[in-house]
């Protein structure tokens, strides 16, 4: 059976397997969420460790995106959504009334499935969030833009066309631009909702490398349908089904030695 399982590529340290020893970034307790009465998340409790990559896997419609969007309160705009339970970031309840939502979203950046650059130049896209912080000085902006594009491994490809339209980039470049845009505001957490599902294998590889390189500075949460990808880049993996957390463990353990039959069936592709 183990032959069918994806092998782990990263050289994660053995300490990673020890769940309790890592500090947590998000702590989720008894989270329930319903769209207009229709239950999408059922009593989730989990911790997302700091400066690690945590992957959410599960069949389509199981609530992965929904969970991700709770973490930066993107559901706030949708009046149909009702939520119970507590989510805290670095010990602070993110739904507390005194929390500045815009500041929370700056700290918890998000990259979506399809690249969504704004209809502006590449430069303005990256500077967008920085300008919102009130930074206007050109020299500072220039520096941040270069740094962010460099972090997203895009600088060399776009440095000659910074003022060209962002919509003229390829899909893979656009997705890295969106990551650069998010990195530019110095988030603590980066949420990635199937960031590579619309991309070709080479672009996917670039994004995966990027995720691995960012781990040292940020906490990353990755939603993916690609088992190999989850195995390659993540330290922890959570398997969700029908809005419930089925199994959550260090990626190595989950893929090589799943505790539950449901998990095993899903990751071996017998059910999806």
């Amino acid at each position: 059976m183990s032959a069918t399982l994806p092998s782990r590529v990263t050289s994660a340290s053995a300490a990673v397997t020890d769940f309790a020893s890592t500090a947590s970034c998000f702590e989720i307790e008894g989270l329930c969420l319903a769209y207009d009465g229709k239950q999408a998340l059922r009593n989730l409790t989990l911790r997302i460790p700091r400066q690690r990559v945590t992957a959410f896997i599960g069949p389509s419609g199981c609530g992965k995106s929904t969970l991700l969007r709770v973490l930066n309160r993107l559901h706030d705009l949708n009046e149909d959504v009702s939520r119970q339970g507590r989510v805290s970031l670095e010990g602070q309840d993110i739904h507390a009334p005194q929390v500045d939502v815009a500041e929370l979203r700056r700290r918890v950046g998000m990259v979506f499935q399809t690249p969504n650059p704004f209809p502006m130049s590449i430069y303005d896209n990256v500077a967008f969030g920085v300008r919102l912080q009130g930074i206007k000085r050109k020299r500072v902006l220039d520096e941040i833009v270069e740094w962010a594009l460099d972090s997203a491994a895009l600088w060399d490809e776009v440095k000659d066309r910074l003022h060209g339209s962002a919509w003229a980039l390829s899909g893979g470049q656009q997705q890295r631009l969106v990551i650069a845009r998010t990195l530019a505001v110095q988030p603590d957490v980066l949420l990635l909702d199937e960031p590579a599902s619309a991309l070709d294998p080479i672009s996917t590889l670039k994004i995966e490398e990027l995720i691995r390189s960012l781990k040292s500075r940020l906490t990353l949460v990755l939603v993916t349908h690609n088992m190999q990808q989850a195995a390659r880049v993540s330290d922890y993996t959570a398997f969700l089904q029908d809005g419930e957390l089925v199994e959550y463990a260090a990626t190595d353990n989950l893929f090589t030695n799943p505790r539950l039959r449901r998990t095993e069936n899903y990751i071996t592709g017998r059910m999806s």
Partner: protein
Amino acid sequence: MTSWRRQGEGGWPWLAAGSVALSLLALLALLVLLGSRGLAHFWPAPVEVVTLESGERFAGQRVRQERIAGDPQVDVLYRTGNRDLDGSYWRWVGAGAIDTRRYPDDLLVLEREHWGEFLGRLVALRAAGDAVPLPAASDEAWHVLRERLTRVEALREQRRQLSEDVIAPLARRLAALRSSEALDPARQQTLTEQWEAARQRLDALDTALARDALILESVDGQRLEQPLAGVLAAWRPNAMSWVDRLLHWGRGVGRFLSEGPRAGSLEGGVWPAIFGTVMMVLLMSLIVTPFGVLAAVYLNEVARQGPLIRLVRIAVRNLAGVPSIVYGVFGLGVFVYGIGGQLDSWFFSERLPSPTFGTGGLLWASLTLALLTLPVVIVATEEGLARIPDQQREGALALGATRYEMLRRVVLPMAVPAMLTGVILAVARAAGEVAPLMLVGVARLAPQLPLDGEFPFLHLDSKFMHLGYHIYNIGFQGGDVERALPLVYASALLLVVVIVVLNLTAIFLRHHLRARHRAPER
């Protein structure tokens, strides 16, 4: 095209293409009709000297011929002018009654300030009561006349400048001084002196203008003394080369576009009407755009989408179908009598009972039309907002933008082309509306432009002229339909051109904005 049938598509693509062709043809026919009838009016047609079998003679431009039902004979309509001599401007003659027709080179047409055109010959010139000998050759006499006319034109221009730039402002300042409470005799003294000096200069100009007169003779021998000051233009239609005719035509069109109307709007130009139309449409756009955009933003971005909002949306769409005269009535009742009356009693009570804002004017007309076109702008903007993917909004929010920042920096810029589409539709609708304007401020004659050098520069309370109303007015309210008709066509063509120009401006703007961030074709 033939492949449609081969592909088993049946005839429907032909039907569709045929409808397009038909629509285009109808539009083309409209433009050709307006263009040919309207623009031909300025062409210096040859003048015939007609001798009837009865021996009677007259000069005129042939306009058209008609066969009256039941009458075997063809009747010809001539434009004869000389209304001060004959009492009529037109003449119908039976084609059979005409004996000879000639086109003498020395026949003169004068466009005059009063009595319309004169057709005939120049007999003598008189300066300050003394006859000036004219050269015997008609070409040289014509040359002398042209020189004198140039002098008169220069004087007329000086007089216009003096009265507009010096006398009118002085008069206004004097009137203001008299009505103000505080007495300032020294200031009144200087103003009065300036006024007197200006009046004297005006009198001198008038005397100089009145110096020359023409002795004219019509082809049937009636004589007439015409002060040269009252002659606006002179030409010899039968002696003109093609180049001359073209230049004359160009000047005629130019004067039609740049001058104010004269003689019950049957002569002169339509400049105040063009200006009023454009001014009102621009004001209307300035008013309707922010309101329409804000309303659309509320409906699409702010309000909770539910049955109530759906109801509001349906209501807004239905408002677009309310007949425009209804808006006119609303504007009259609410803006003119309601708000305008209140404004008058608060701020302009010293002028009552003559109303300032309590009567139709530019502001109320623009507001009424803004109301009329509001649904169009709302609907177009809303459609533009709905087309923006939610990912763009979420992308901005995820970067820490507040909802306002998201709207300001991402959503609204992306919706600008849609807003401009709304404004284009609004302009197209508003520029052609006449009915509501009749209730809220359009005037039959308002040569004073609503925009001038006098504070507050834009006179929102002033009445204004409008091309659409001008067409209605000269075509159906005046006396001489034959004379009005070419002007109706010309004004209608102009109205179409004005609307097209306004629309092209907005379309150009929209294209420019769209092109900025389009990905290259891949």
